């Protein structure tokens, strides 16, 4: 699992790459939350265009990143969510709580 970041003014884009499961979830959550803390961006976008698969461990990764961004009074959105991760997020009802964007 690889994580890259990009800053575009107020927007922090975080791009995990690879499959998210219990094996990598804790390390990814830590890396995401630490990066959000360091950057203190008003807007955080989790770009999931490089995540072809996630199971319920991925739900907690997304929730942790969202909570950390919102805890710092930032906005949070998920971008480019692929069909399988989308279905998992939908099963947990997170598609109604987190804005999904393309781009």
């Amino acid at each position, binding site marked *: 699992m690889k994580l890259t970041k990009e800053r575009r003014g107020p927007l922090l884009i975080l791009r995990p790459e690879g499959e998210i499961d219990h094996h990598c979830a804790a390390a990814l959550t830590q890396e995401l939350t630490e990066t959000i803390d360091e950057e203190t961006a008003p807007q955080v976008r989790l770009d999931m265009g490089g995540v072809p*698969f996630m199971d319920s*461990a991925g739900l907690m990764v997304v929730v942790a990143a969202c909570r950390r961004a919102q805890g710092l009074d930032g906005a949070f959105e998920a971008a480019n969510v692929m069909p399988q991760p989308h279905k*998992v997020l939908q099963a947990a009802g997170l598609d109604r709580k987190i804005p999904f964007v393309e781009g």
Partner: protein
Amino acid sequence: MKQEINRFTVRFPSKSANESFARSAAAAFCAQLDPTLDELGDIRTAVSEAVTNAVVHGYRDCIGTVVMTVRLLEDSVVEIKIADKGVGIPDIEAARQPMFTTGGAERSGMGFTIMESFMDELKVKSRPGQGTTVTMKKRLNTRRYK
């Protein structure tokens, strides 16, 4: 009882690195039924949840053996059985409720809910101290073996 067309069984240690191996192996075997990408994604997800449960809950304090059997049945039905000889589940009904977990803050408690919604059928057999067996079935919209 549906006739069996093919099957494979694999045993592996309950290491989290094997979650990925198990879902990929199950999907690769089911590919001979010519499933859709969506169906393969459902199978991969359900297997990942069941194997993770064995790793995280079944063998919470040790490394044990997980046994996965995938059977291809007539009418394009896939049956996947994932068994451990771990601690077992004292209350299966409670464990199957959404958001129920004994795994701490990093677990969503959505594993069984996802297995249920991504597969057509889910059966859980468990005895405290003796282990857990999860059996899931899904009928594929495939052109083969009808």
